[in-house]
């Protein structure tokens, strides 16, 4: 997919573990893994909002578009 999820990078910058992020955002660890590995087909605005809240970043810091 042309959308790249840079959640790993942002998590490393904020020094937050997957389990902690999943708990704070309110999603399961399995769903967070789907998101991190780029298998997700869509992200709800509400989920993105919570992730940005917890990681104190902008959606653009997590999502990136790359030409195929």
């Amino acid at each position, binding site marked *: 997919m042309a959308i790249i999820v840079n959640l790993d990078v942002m998590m490393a910058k904020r020094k937050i573990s997957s389990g902690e992020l999943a708990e704070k955002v309110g999603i399961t660890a399995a769903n967070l893994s789907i998101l991190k590995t780029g298998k*997700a*087909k*869509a992200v709800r605005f509400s989920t993105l909002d919570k992730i940005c809240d917890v990681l104190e970043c902008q959606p653009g810091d997590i999502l990136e578009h790359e030409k195929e």
Partner: protein
Amino acid sequence: MINEITGWSEMKSLKLSRLLVYLLMVMLILLLFIAYFVAVWYDELSDGTGIIKSSVVVPGTVMIYICDLFGLTAVFYLNRLLANISKDKVFIEQNTKCLRIISWCCVFAGIAMLVFSLWRYYFGICAFFAMFMGLVMRVLKNVFEKAVELKSESDFTI
């Protein structure tokens, strides 16, 4: 879910469908053994209204065998489809495959009947209905295919 008025449940309905499928399977297996006798009986019973005026015993037997084999295949996949549904696996790739095979079975059985209509015209009507059934199954397969895609999209929406 149980219907309050009739007391009929979804599981009971599925069980009835599977029972009917098994019944049909038994009938089709039996037909394999009596195909020739059915063709002889039909030859005596029917009049020669077709392009080819000869006896229908041989072509009739062949047609019954072909349709029976396609029928058995379709019933086998119908049973698999019902088994998947009873396991709550509705919108999966395997069900789409089952519907596609059933659809092709109907079409091929229709073609066999169409060929047989050279001997007896009215089998053309049966061929039409078999092919129509194949078309309905194909549309159903397309619906399932789209539903599988939508379910996958929904499952991977975080």
